[in-house]
Structure formats: C-alpha cells, structure tokens
C-alpha cells in the first residue's frame, strides 16, 4: 500500500526560481533563504519520496479566465514548465504519476469532491519553484508529481475547512492505492504578501508564525480561519496559505515538526517552510 510519510508547507515565490536558475543562491540577499532550506534538501535526499502530491496554484499560466476550476488534479504523464512571459524555466520536465493521480481523482469524486480532471497542462512557478527548493538542480526530478491546482485567485476561493477536508480525503485515497509507494504531500504558496494596490508590500511576521504554530498543533482550529482574516492580516496574496491546509489535513490529528524556517523578505513576500511527519 502507498504510504503518506510526510508533509511540507513552502512558499513558491518566482524570484527563488530565478535565484536558482542564475546561481545566486549563496549571495547576501538569497543566502539566508537557501540556508534555511538546506536541512530540508538533505532530508529529501534521505527520504527519497516516490511521488509528491504537489498542491499549488496556477498564476494565469495554464488557465485563463475562460475556465476557473476550484480543484484540478493532473492525471497526465508529463508536464512542461510554462512560459510565464520570460520563456519557460530551464528545469526538467515534470513527470506525472498517472496511476496514482487517477486513483486519487476517482477516490475523491466518489468521496463527493467535485474535482476537475486535467490531462494536459503546463506548470508554472507555483509547482516548479518548490521542486527547485527541495531538490536543487538535478538533471531529472528525483520523484514523480501529482499536481493539484487550487483556485486562490478568483473569489471565493475554497474555504479552509474544505481544503482541510480535501487533504483528509487525499490521505484516504493514498492509503487505498495498492502499490508500495513513499508519498509526500506539499502545500505551497504564501506566506504573507500583497502584490497589488497602495497596500502592496504588507508582511506579517507575527501572524505567519502563529499560522505555523497552528499547523504543528493537534487541534484543527486553523481550518476555520476565514478568508477575510488572511486578507486583512497577510495581504491579498496571503490567501495562498489555504493550500497548506490541504497538506496539513492529509497528515491526521497529530504531527511531529521536523523542521521550520521563516525569513523576510524575498521580493514582495515573506518566506516560510515547515516539514511535518504524521504521528500515529
């Protein structure tokens, strides 16, 4: 049976991809950020996940306004890095795990989640930047990926509660997949940032850290944070953190924190990441 062995929450700021691609990860600006991810890169080398269920959002790359799915799951064999306006990132193509993806998709629909199935799409920085942060610059990504794209751009985005429940359902689906696989789930995006309007540049170290605390807890209070609180406290783009709740919901009641890191700023954004293990 497939085993859900760990969860990672992480920012996916595009500039981090630029830093990797241009070899600036050790400079004064990026050094402290990449140093914080060093533990995690070593840990991933040891863990060797077979598949990552990678929760992210598309930033007007694969989807335009013609079609806006709330939850879309990639069931394809291969995804190419999207051209976001500067040409595609020079990173490896992303290999899907179509067997596991279809199994999860089917299980979720039977479990009353109204999934949109995607067979072909390009993937943008929301998906490729976390891969770079966790795995550096390999010739080929060391694991397969099941992309799970969440609408966090057009309101209303899904509630924290719904995201958490989706995570629980993903965990049930993974547990019923017959092949022996080491599966991780990553929730990406955030942390506090606002990319628009006169309030742009808002960051909230205190709230972000409270959020990380809540993820470590065995209470599920964090799922009930309303959208308006993310907006007021963490900027208009901080709402991406609801995607971390899908990851956290999948890990069950108790978790153990393996690593936690927070840094301000990267470009317009507060950077954070957390590595959690389910405790049974």
């Amino acid at each position, binding site marked *: 049976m497939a085993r859900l062995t760990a969860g990672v929450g992480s920012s996916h700021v*595009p*500039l981090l991809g630029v830093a990797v691609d241009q070899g600036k990860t050790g400079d004064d600006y990026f050094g402290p950020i990449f140093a914080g991810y060093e533990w995690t890169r070593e840990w991933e080398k040891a863990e060797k996940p077979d598949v990552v269920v990678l929760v992210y959002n598309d*930033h*007007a*790359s694969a989807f*335009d*306004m*013609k079609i806006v799915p709330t939850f879309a799951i990639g069931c394809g064999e291969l995804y190419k890095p*999207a*051209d*976001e*306006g*500067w*040409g595609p990132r020079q990173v490896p193509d992303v290999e899907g795990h179509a067997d596991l993806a279809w199994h999860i998709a089917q299980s979720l629909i039977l479990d009353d989640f109204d999934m949109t199935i995607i067979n072909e799409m390009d993937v943008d920085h929301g998906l490729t930047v976390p891969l770079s942060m966790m795995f550096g610059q390999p010739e080929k990504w060391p694991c397969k990926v099941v992309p799970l794209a969440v609408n966090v*751009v*057009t*309101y*209303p985005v899904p509630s924290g509660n719904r995201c958490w429940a989706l995570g629980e359902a993903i965990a049930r689906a993974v547990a019923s997949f017959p092949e022996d696989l080491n599966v991780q789930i990553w929730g990406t995006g955030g942390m*506090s940032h*606002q*990319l*628009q*309007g*006169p*309030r*742009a*540049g*808002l*960051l*909230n*170290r205190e*709230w972000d850290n409270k959020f990380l605390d809540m993820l470590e807890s065995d209470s599920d209070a964090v799922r009930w944070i309303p*959208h*308006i609180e993310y*907006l*007021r*406290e963490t900027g*208009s783009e901080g709402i991406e953190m609801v995607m971390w709740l899908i990851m956290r919901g999948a890990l069950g009641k108790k978790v153990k924190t393996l690593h936690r890191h927070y840094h*301000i*700023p990267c*470009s*317009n954004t*507060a950077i954070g990441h957390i590595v959690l293990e389910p405790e049974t």
Partner: protein
Amino acid sequence: MTEAAKPAADIHAYLAELEDIPGTRVYTAARARKGYHINQFAMSLMKGDNRERFKADERAYLDEWPISEEAKQALLKRDYNALLDMGGNVYFLSKLFSTDGLSFAEAVSTMTDMTFPEYRDMMLKGGRSPLGNRSIKGGY
C-alpha cells in the same frame, strides 16, 4: 430527508467585508467580469509572437480587443491602480510586467506611493506593517 439543509453562508456579508481592506482590490466575481477582456488581453502576451506584435505597435494591438478606451489608456500608461479598479488582476497584468522586462517587485512598487528604492528598502526592513492597514471602517 436525510440531512437538514445547511444554513447558507451569507454571500452578501462575505463580499461586503472584502471591500473593507485599505488599498486593496480583492479579485471578486464583479471585478473578474468587469476586467475580463483586460485580463484576457494580458494573457495573450504569454506568446512570444503576441509580445512582439504588441511592442511594435501597442495601440494597434490593443485595438484588437473589446476593451474600453479608458482601459486602453491605463494599459498604455501602465497605470496599474487604475487597471485594478477596472477589474485587472495582478497575475494577468504581470504578463505586461514581463513584456516590459520589469521585475515583479518594481512593477508592484509603482502601485504604492513609494519609489522602487524606497519600496525595496521597506521590504528589507520587514515590509509594510498591517497596523492600521487591516480595515477601512475599523481603522485598525
């Protein structure tokens, strides 16, 4: 009936709250509808060919789209706050940032009352504080 109908979430109260954030345009359905063609235009700049055609004659390219004159002017001037008011969304508009060769941070800074160096400096010092920036009505 098996389960009682849940009380409906109050969509009107939900949407009203989204308008109560200082200096922020939440991308609601109302904005998504208003800015539909602005955003679809911006999205078209993801293709290299379109970027070239746009750069060669911005006005002519814009005239291919069913966008108001006001929005065309704002696009030509890169007046991003005006575009947000007209339903533009930053992830779509960012295709224009990249067409212009601007970094995200620099483009974003033009929507604030700061120069880019001032904005960058604020970010290095911990960013804009939420204090007083959370609610228009509440003033907190």
